[in-house]
């Protein structure tokens, strides 16, 4: 993490700035009104900003999302294809999952939640229709079919 400098601007607000890994200086002025300015400093005159981008609170949120804040991945992760009463979902097996390293049989997922694992995505490979002896690994993504409630219980079991 680069070091962020804070400067108070009396009557205006606060400015934060830092130097990027490539040596460019970037800053943000936070106005009291909630407006923000995104600043890029020049190399020739380090005291002046080359560009200032004026952002309303809404603009700021949009820009933050585009820069890869939480929202984007959340939206992708919750994409579900629904048939009537049946849903298909991708569920991760996180590193700390109680079932990482155990077989599908031992998980007793279908008995407990009514959910079937129809495929497992491991790295670039996809294993279609894994058998009961298939061993789940941390980092796997299971493709599961079941009721929406069942799927959320399944995700809870896996610790996703």
């Amino acid at each position, binding site marked *: 993490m680069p070091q962020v400098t804070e400067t108070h601007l009396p009557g205006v607000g606060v400015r934060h700035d830092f130097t990027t890994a490539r040596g460019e200086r970037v800053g943000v002025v936070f106005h009291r009104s909630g407006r923000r300015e995104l600043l890029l400093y020049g190399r020739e005159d380090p*005291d002046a900003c080359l560009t200032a981008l004026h952002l309303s609170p809404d603009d700021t949120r949009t820009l933050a999302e585009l820069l890869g804040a939480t929202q984007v991945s959340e939206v992708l992760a919750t994409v579900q294809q629904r048939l009537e009463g049946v849903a298909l979902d991708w569920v991760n097996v996180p590193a700390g999952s109680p079932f990482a390293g155990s077989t599908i049989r031992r998980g007793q997922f279908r008995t407990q939640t009514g959910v079937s694992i129809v495929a497992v995505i491991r790295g670039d490979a996809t294993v279609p229709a894994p058998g009961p002896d298939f061993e789940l690994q941390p980092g796997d993504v299971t493709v599961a079919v079941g009721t929406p409630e069942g799927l959320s219980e399944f995700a809870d079991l896996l610790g996703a």
Partner: protein
Amino acid sequence: MTFLFAAAGGDAALAFIELGAVAIGLAVLARLAGRWGITAIPFYLLAGLAVGEGGFAPLDVSSDFISLAGDIGVLLLLLTLGLEYTSDELRQGLRTGVAPGLLDAAANFTPGFLAGVVLGWEVEGALLLGGVCWVSSSGVIAKVLSDLDRLGNRETPAILNLLVMEDLAMAAYLPVMAALLAGTGVADAALTVGISLAAVAVILTLALRWGQGLSSLLARGSDEALLLSLFGITLLVGGLAEQLQVSAAIGAFLVGLALSGPVQARAGALIEPLRDLFAATFFLFFSFQIRPGSLVAVAVPALLLAAVTGGTKLATGWFAARRMGVALHGRLRAGTVLIARGEFSIVLASLGAAAADGEELRALAAGYVLLTATTATLLTKHAERLAPAR
């Protein structure tokens, strides 16, 4: 209702027509100023000259009305100035900005004061002229910095800290001047100065300590209630301060300082349109009373003063920016933008209206503000070109 208005007769009708025409004229000027990226204050002053005595389109609206509206404008100008800074910012300013603040006072007050002495004015007039030259215009500077996208620049905190220091200094300077102008003998003056400084100290302490209570009390109401209570409190405190010979302006300033937290920003946004309206009236009325002839008479001293104090302000900004480790171009930008004098200088000059040299002071201040506010804006736009090419 109709006959009530009819009873007021043609007077009201004529006054409305004249005031309406003047307001539209000011609106056109404000738009022009906006397009050229400079403050509207010089234009308002010129408009006042045009419609004033001896101008080319003299008004005959009762000057009592405009004068009262102008006085309210001063109170609202000072109120918004007080609202601009939080008490934390003021305390921090006091901790870090004393050295540039003192240099600022010494370098810019002195030439103005000396000019007053050379012109053969009484001490009060000379002291006021010192003040006129001392205070940069936070209104003009805030507008220029944001128009030119300089809020993020490294020299900007140096500029803003100087403005905070000047505002704080005004809290002491204004009541002293008000007392001096009211006092008769030296002993009397010393007494009133003592009283008024004590009053300011008490109000300032109360404001910084218990301002929180007032803020949270005001914060509960609707926007309408907030606007009315703010307006009421400002006039009330201003009036009481005037009674104590502390000057109404400083009372309004302290009300602004006392407010903090979320209500501070809300109050600022609410009062701003009202301030713009009344302040425009104030600037108009200020030069309304100046005969164009007297402005011509002070042209040479105004030019000289603007040149000298332009140089000293440049040096002040240069020093303040250098202290923050800012390079040549940044120092030039800081120095040039600070040259702008504006609303505060006009307020100070209007304080001295009743003084022996009030007439001359008024004309000189108007000319001086006209020159500095416009040249500073132009100079700072091209500040980098002032530096020798590398």
